[in-house]
């Protein structure tokens, strides 16, 4: 409560000082008090809209928000990002060396731009890119990062889940530069139209990465992205085989316009790709609807989906822990219930 009061007092002080003492020294000194660098992701010259959740987090912190993007074609991505609401400025570094998101050259790049801009906060999404990059940045800045932030109480006080989401930790940072990775589902990305941020070129230290990118193998899918989908259907060990998983889950997902997820048991048994795993060591999702079949509901799985708005579960075991969190539970054989559900949804 005090933290919130302090934040609003600070904001108020800034506004008043801007009006009453428009001296440049004061203004810049105060603006420096709170300014966020929001690291955006891009792929093949396309802005990752879910990564704009960093901008939403930056706005909650209270200061100005500068977005950052780097890679080949970064200028075009910056122009696109400049239209998003809530961004004051977009800094871009146009250099194909940053396309693969290698932390070895990205970390010095970010550090240079953070120092140049005098940012008090640096925010990146808590995805594969942010997770591998930001701790390296934090170490170079000698600051203790705060990972997977789900709530911002004030400019120095943050909320994050620990113990697989079984406890919620509120921490206060004493570091002068705060490095955060944020959970995308906890901060809704701003509108991508209506903004008009300035676009500016950043500094490029051009550090060569000792690590070489060789190849990638991404699961191709026309379905919505799992981490940001409105609806998710998820299958577990109860599906018994990859054949059954592929037979039952995609039609259900298509009927709902949903992304497909899986439990660790289903992934380990080879029913589904690793990248579909929902849970403590996989993805965190918080869709409007999480519909799962054949998932018992181990705590590691619940960690990744229990913030979903509505949880529906089909399981033959009436005692399965999943029913303790499900808003709608159906006890029954999924091999019979899932096709029936798919058929009835298709008819609607």
């Amino acid at each position, binding site marked *: 409560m005090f933290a919130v009061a302090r934040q609003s007092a600070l904001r108020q002080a800034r506004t008043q000082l801007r009006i009453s003492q428009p001296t440049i020294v004061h203004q810049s000194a105060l603006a420096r008090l709170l300014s966020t660098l929001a690291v955006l992701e891009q792929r093949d010259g396309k802005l990752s809209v879910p990564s704009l959740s960093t901008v939403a987090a930056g706005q909650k912190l209270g200061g100005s928000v500068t977005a950052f993007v780097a890679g080949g074609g970064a200028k075009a991505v910056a122009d696109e990002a400049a239209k998003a609401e809530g961004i004051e400025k977009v800094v871009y570094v146009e250099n194909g060396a940053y396309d693969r998101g290698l*932390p*070895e050259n990205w970390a010095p790049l970010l550090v240079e731009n953070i120092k140049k801009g005098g940012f008090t906060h640096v925010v990146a999404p808590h*995805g*594969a890119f942010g*997770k*591998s990059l*930001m*701790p*390296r940045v*934090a*170490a*170079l800045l000698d*600051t*203790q*990062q705060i*990972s*997977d932030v789900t709530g911002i109480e004030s400019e120095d*006080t943050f909320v994050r*889940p*620990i*113990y*697989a989401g079984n*406890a*919620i930790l*509120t*921490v*206060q*940072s004493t570091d002068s530069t705060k490095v955060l990775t944020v959970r995308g589902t906890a901060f809704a990305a701003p509108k991508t139209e209506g903004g008009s941020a300035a676009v500016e070129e950043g500094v490029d230290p051009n550090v060569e*990465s*000792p*690590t*070489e*990118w*060789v*190849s*990638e*193998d*991404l*699961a191709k899918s026309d379905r919505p992205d799992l981490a940001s989908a409105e609806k998710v259907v998820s299958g577990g060990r109860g599906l018994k085989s990859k054949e059954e998983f592929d037979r039952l889950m995609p039609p259900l997902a298509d009927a*709902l316009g949903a992304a497909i997820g899986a439990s*660790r048991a289903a992934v*380990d048994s080879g029913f589904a790709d*690793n*990248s579909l795993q929902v849970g*403590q*060591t996989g993805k965190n999702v918080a869709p409007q*609807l999480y519909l799962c079949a054949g998932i018992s509901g181990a705590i590691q799985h619940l960690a990744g989906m229990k913030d979903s*708005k*509505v*949880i*529906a579960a089909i399981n033959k075991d009436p005692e399965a822990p999943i029913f*303790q969190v*499900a*808003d*709608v*539970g*159906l006890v029954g054989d999924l091999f019979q219930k899932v096709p029936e*559900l798919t058929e009835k*949804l298709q008819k*609607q």
Partner: protein
Amino acid sequence: MNPFDELSIEEAVRLRERKLPVEEIVTVTAGPAKSQDILRTAMAMGADKGIHVQIDDKEPQLEPLGVAKLLKAVVEQQKSNLVILGKQAIDDDAAQTGQMLAGLLGWSQATQASKVVVEGDVVTVTKEVDGGVETLKAKLPMIITTDLRLNEPRYASLPNIMKAKKKPLEKKTLKDFEGLDLKQRLKTVKVTEPPPREGGVKVEDVDGMISKLKELGAL
């Protein structure tokens, strides 16, 4: 032992079993006296030596940045050229230490590894990323953090548990690492329970499920 750390030890031992020139496998931990049990387990799995940095309950807790600084000192002292860590500890779920250590040392890093191939001084790592896998190549020295699918850790056999009791275990304290800024940067304001979900309803059939989902606005 943190499950991801078991994967780290297993991978180190497997590198040696693949007849790669692994001179020594050193396992290190920082924490209270009972963390020595963890080191003994690691040695029973195949590590050669343990280093225990004893931290009393009264001393401030080490944060990932502090652990990374401590590990940097150990790495330099032991002249290691490959450090394998878990991708995250399942208590604080921070997932930072390996990357921080790589940054402090200025080494290559490969996080969330699901496959590691070493040829000479070139390491090829397949890592788990959003939507699939990515393969990276780097020269030693480097830092690798392990993901669940890297390997299946072995159980320590009884004879190996007995042998592990005779393996060397170096005991150190934070006083042995003077000059490192290990002070805590984060203050715990509070730890709370997550808001419980309200108990849901069980429905009789598929039609019941559809109508309930509609009622809840999910369809």
